[in-house]
């Protein structure tokens, strides 16, 4: 149950960063709830605990609004992976990643993994466009997704905005993302040859159709496993007695008896 999962101690943290309206919340929502729905602009941040095998992975969804920018580095503190999200139809959103969000990741783990994700692939007319096509992006809508209404809705409400079929051109090419990845590694002072290759870390997704979303998260989960294992051993070796942990195990054994 998700209620319980909130009580559990996460083993590792993944943070989703990116400009407002690129679809961070929608990505997470698509992955966790398997559907695309209207989201409102995220306030502050939210997180979701994912049970991945025996591990708990917390995925933090941050607010893209400038107003909450200051909180970003706190969310990133100790992160094992950062998902830098941009909007494929909005060149500016990619630029923002470098200008505004990259510095937030200074607080992340030194071996943090960076993924660059171009969302809204359904609007660019590539293979992700299976479901989409009825509606164009409307920038005034809530942060995250920026598209409306939920694709699961059988009869979309008849509104002129929705009926006018706008297809936007892809503004950001894959090469742009790949070169950004290279610059990030240089910024971090990491040797490119020792890092995960750009073609594995640059994704194009669609939260609306679900295209590539599972692949994105699950690839990252597999990549952060070493971090989890290290965290676990560190916790075990730590001289501090974790009272909470003890309580938990005690409870568990007792529960088994009755």
């Amino acid at each position, binding site marked *: 149950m998700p*209620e319980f999962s909130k*009580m559990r101690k996460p083993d590792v943290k993944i943070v989703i960063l990116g400009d407002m309206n690129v679809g961070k919340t929608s990505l997470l929502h698509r992955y966790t709830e398997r559907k695309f729905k209207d989201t409102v602009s995220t*306030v*502050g941040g939210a997180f979701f605990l994912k049970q991945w095998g025996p591990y708990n992975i917390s995925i933090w969804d941050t607010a893209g609004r400038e107003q*909450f920018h*200051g909180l970003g580095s706190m969310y990133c*503190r100790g992160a094992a992976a950062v998902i830098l999200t941009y909007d494929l139809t909005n060149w500016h959103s990619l630029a923002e990643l470098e200008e505004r969000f990259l510095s937030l990741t200074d607080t992340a783990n030194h071996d943090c993994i960076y993924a660059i994700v171009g969302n809204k692939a359904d609007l660019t007319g590539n293979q992700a466009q299976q479901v989409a096509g009825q509606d164009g992006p409307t920038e005034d809508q809530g942060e995250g997704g920026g598209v409306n209404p939920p694709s699961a809705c059988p009869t979309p409400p008849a509104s002129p905005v929705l009926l006018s079929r706008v297809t936007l051109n892809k503004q950001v090419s894959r090469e742009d993302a790949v070169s950004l990845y290279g610059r990030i590694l240089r910024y971090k002072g990491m040797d490119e040859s020792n890092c995960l290759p750009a073609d594995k870390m640059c994704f194009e997704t669609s939260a609306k159709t679900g295209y590539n979303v599972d692949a994105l998260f699950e690839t990252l989960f597999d990549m952060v496993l070493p971090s989890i294992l290290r965290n676990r051993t560190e916790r075990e070796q730590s001289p501090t007695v974790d009272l909470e942990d003890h309580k938990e195990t005690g409870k568990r054994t007792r529960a088994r008896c009755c």
Partner: protein
Amino acid sequence: MGTERKGTEAVIHRRLRNQICSSNGWVDACCAAEMSVKAFELVPAVARELLMGDKARINIECIECCGKHLYIGTNDCFIHHFLLEETTTKGTLSYSVQKQLVRYLGLKKPVDALKAASALERLIVLCDSTLSMVDMVTLEPVPSGGSKVRGVAAFCINENPVNGDPFCVEMGVISARRRTVQVYMLYEDRVQLVKEVTTPEQPCAVSLDGYFLCLALSSQYMILNYSTGAAQDLFPYDSEERKPIVKRIGREEFLLAAPGGLGMFANAEGVSQRAPVNWSESVIGAAVCFPYVVALDEGFITVHSMLDQQLKQTLSFRDGHILQDFEGKVVLASTKAVYVLVPLPLERQIQDLLAGHRVEEALTLTEGAQRNIPKDKFQILHKRILQQAGFIQFGQLQFLEAKEHFRTGQLDVRELISLYPLLLPASSSFSRCHPPLHQFADLNHLAQGDQEKVQKCKRFLITYLGEVRSTEGANGCREDVDTALLKLYAEQDHDSLLDLLASPNACLLADCAPWLEKHHKYFALGLLYHYNGQDAAAIQIWVRVVNGELQDSTRSDLYEYIVDFLSFCSNLDLVWKYADWALQKDQTIGVKIFTLRTLAKNQTKDQTGQINPDDVITYLGKHNQALLLYLEHLVLERRIKKEKLHTHLAVLYTDRVLSLLAQSSSMDAQVSAARDKLQLLLRESNLYRVQLLLGKIQDCNQLLLERATLHGKLEEHDKALHILVHQLKDFPAAEAYCVWGSASRDAGYQQHLYHLLLGVYLDRDIPGSSSTGPGGSNGTGELEMAAVDLLNGHGEVFDAVQVLGLIPEGWSLQLLRPFLGRALRGSMHAHRTSQLALGLARSENIQLHHDRLKQRRSPVLVSDQKGCHLCHNTFSEPDCVCLPGGVPVHTHCAAKRVVPDSPIKRQLANTSNHT
């Protein structure tokens, strides 16, 4: 001057409280249905009258609450002391306050902060940027054993002190003028500065936990470990613009006011472990009252859940000034009066949520409260909430979710069954739990006459009960569960009805029988009777269905089913009772009652349920066909070796053949089929009375083959062969006779028969044989040819020497060439084979002689330390047996193991003893 008021007492009555409410203008504003959880109630504690009366300029500056003691500092430099008592009348909580002392601190400055150090019985007072101490009871100044701490902007008490001394209070102090934070240890008689740390900017709010100082600086928050000096920036915040909040909410965890009206959580490492809550921009004070974050702004108290970050309740509160929690008690103050924010009992909050069908929130709240409730109590509560949640979802036809909640909530499944009218057996002792888990009277009430809904619910219950009955959840109420399930199956025409009845079940007969009748499930009813040991009733019902008296199309082969059932039925009276009915309907099927029945393995024991075959044969006298089938069953299938049965069957077969032959209209096929059966029996069985049958068919010339067989049984082979050769002229049959007649006999007997046959072929003096007739030469030639074929075909069985004496002189060598050739070769082969055997035997003999000599040459060591290779025990006597290779073993071991006449066994008794 305030001391005169000592002892003044004021009890706030409910009437008065209402007045305050209206005068102060606060009302519960939590009316929006979407978010209404009534988590807290605002209860007045100290009314304006008790503090400043109608003096408009006097305001509350700070409060402190410690146990029952409530201290209020005012802007005119007074400290008021009250005793706060909780009273509950008719479930409504209210506070009565008892005014204690009032002390004027002698300045014209406001009292900025008050903190109780209860272990020291001191009240720490911040007034005029100076920290001083007064006695908690008398409010008299206490000398702090040194200079007062001056230039203080703000201070805090460490609730997670690092010093083990219980009579030492740790204090974090922000300097008003310098960019420093000081940590003091406060003892009964002195104040000691422990540490002073400089901060990059002017601090304006502080909170302390262990070694961690959580600070609001002018442009950001930070965490500072005063022991190590390690600093951790949290996030930027403009303290000029908005009042910062730094609130310790638990071990190494703080709640901070963040830009954009957020309440951010941060732990000592500078990591946020909970998602932020979204309160308003102008929050003045905040506190955590698990699982809620309570915040006060200019006009409202907002309540957010830490579990889902949602706003749960809003209370209007004008002129709000202070919100602080003291040991879990949230106290608020406007500028003129003090209130307590009382959490409503968790159960009531949860019930409110459930009443609003907000299942997920109710469960979140319940589970979130797990650590605040004793375990056993929590389990009971949790179960009940899960059950209630399940019923709410059930009412909304969200069956998957409902099922999950019923399952985890360990619902007594009868609660659910009882919703469906008439499903629970009349005898069930069940009564619904109180207070009820749901508001439905029954399914009809729930569905409001919507039959489709009813059907959906029924289908759900079928799957649910089907799953439950195999689990422990059905313990103690299996009868109720199975009965309900049976009723549903019957009503819904469900295929699993029969599976349920055919497998172990606890269906109540008295309750189910009328129900099954009502739904015309007579076959199922029969199964139920059978399961309950009432086979007579079961068969009676079924027979009525077969006879067309009752209508139930469950099984089109019900008649066969009954026959099958009777064949297994252990109640013999019942078998005899319905056998007649079954046989009258169809003898060939009806007889299966007896043929499918397993026979007693031991005839001497008269087991119940076993039928004596003789009784059956007598009984079946009037049903010829059935009798024949039954005898066939006994003789041919069961291979019962009883002369009577075999004779009886053979006679029946014979009679049938004879009667068919007598009828001119009989078909050849019928006759030959009947004869085949007879012939087979005559050939295969050795038990029937041969003479009797021979007498029966003696006069029938069409049954020569049968006669020959009977003669064969009497070992009258010449007669038999005579019939076959001379009367039937069926030479293959004659040869087959030889094979058959000598089966299971030795080779000599077979040779004898073949020689007999050869003799019959070659006998020329048979009177009456067709060979003597006019076409005799032909006939003789025919026989001779048969003889030649016989010799050539089966040469190996004949004794060649004898045959040579028998065959006529005139036969050419060419004619018998294959026979002679084979005979010669055979004889040669036998000779050489024996030569070879002889040679081999000789060589083995020599080999053994060699071995024996070799063994005798070397000693065999036997000692009491040495073990026998077969039993691994030691030797106690010198006697031993030596296996090939010189391995000594006990004589008895060798005798046990080695085959007595094995050539490898050689006794070496009395061999020299070398112990």
